[in-house]
């Protein structure tokens, strides 16, 4: 790299600078309320995230009636635990079993079930995951450390519509008698996208 010898007096990245410029413009034109923006950011940084989904999964592992409702009508069963709203209006829950493993992607953009998982990780929104999850799901999962037997059927769900998908991972062996709260600690974000499994108990 040559020809870029002047000093910038800012440590912000080009993307951060662009976002700041857009925010200033939108605020000056009266199109966004900066206080509303702060609450939006605070909500998804600190209040809404994958611990919500983990509670849904742990409830399904411990309550067969709840699991039945969850698989039949994801939106209303998830709403029973108070998780509703934007990007979770129409939820579908996919059950992993010893013979079926589900993986969720949005090849067209970055659709993701916000009320149960929060905002998507960077890799979920990136072109490599989006393009490869549908053509080489086993290769993608292997890069996450998840290698499935050939006789397990992989089902990839491309979120091309307004349905939002949550994977119900298998309950790990050796967790009999664990409380719902302790079980929720085993449920990772990736296990609810399908790029991982629930953790083994320590």
């Amino acid at each position: 790299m040559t020809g870029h010898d002047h000093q910038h007096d800012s440590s912000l990245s080009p993307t951060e600078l662009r976002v700041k410029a857009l925010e200033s413009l939108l605020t000056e034109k009266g199109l966004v309320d900066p206080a509303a923006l702060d609450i939006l950011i605070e909500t998804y940084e600190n209040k809404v995230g994958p611990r919500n989904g983990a509670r849904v999964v742990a409830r399904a592992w411990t309550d067969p009636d709840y699991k039945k409702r969850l698989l039949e009508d994801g939106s209303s069963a998830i709403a029973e635990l108070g998780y509703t709203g934007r990007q979770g209006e129409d939820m579908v829950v996919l059950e992993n079993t010893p013979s079926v493993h589900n993986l969720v992607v949005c090849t067209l953009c970055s659709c993701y079930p916000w009320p149960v998982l929060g905002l998507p990780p960077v890799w979920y929104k990136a072109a490599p995951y989006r393009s490869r999850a549908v053509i080489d799901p086993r290769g993608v999962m292997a890069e996450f450390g998840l290698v499935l037997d050939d006789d397990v059927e992989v089902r990839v769900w491309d979120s091309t519509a307004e349905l939002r998908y949550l994977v119900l991972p298998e309950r790990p062996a050796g967790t009999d008698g664990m409380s719902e709260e302790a079980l929720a600690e085993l449920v990772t974000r990736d296990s609810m996208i399908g790029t991982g499994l629930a953790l083994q108990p320590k």
Partner: protein
Amino acid sequence: MPVLQADKVTETLRRGGSARVDADVPARFAPGDRVVTRNINPLGHTRLPRYARGRQGVIDRDHGVFIFPDTHANTGDPKPQHCYSVLFTARELWGADASPRDKIYIDLWDDHLDPADG
């Protein structure tokens, strides 16, 4: 469009806004029906991914009636219609080298699909 005010953020997020439409639109397909996706290549918005055009699949489940984004995004016409999960085998989409077991489920609308003959 009104500007979202700070005191309305939490309620607005909690309420959300479904694209589901309470309209009595008949479904063209039922679970188990064999379908073929249209080979369309519009310049504007479409939810039919390029990798699944002109391919044979099976209706897995009917999600109900939703706004149709292909027209809604381009002209504002919501054109409500049924949206389905359509099952494609990995081999139908990717050829003989793909896993014989794996499946891809894509959410598609009536206007993306035709009955598959035979």
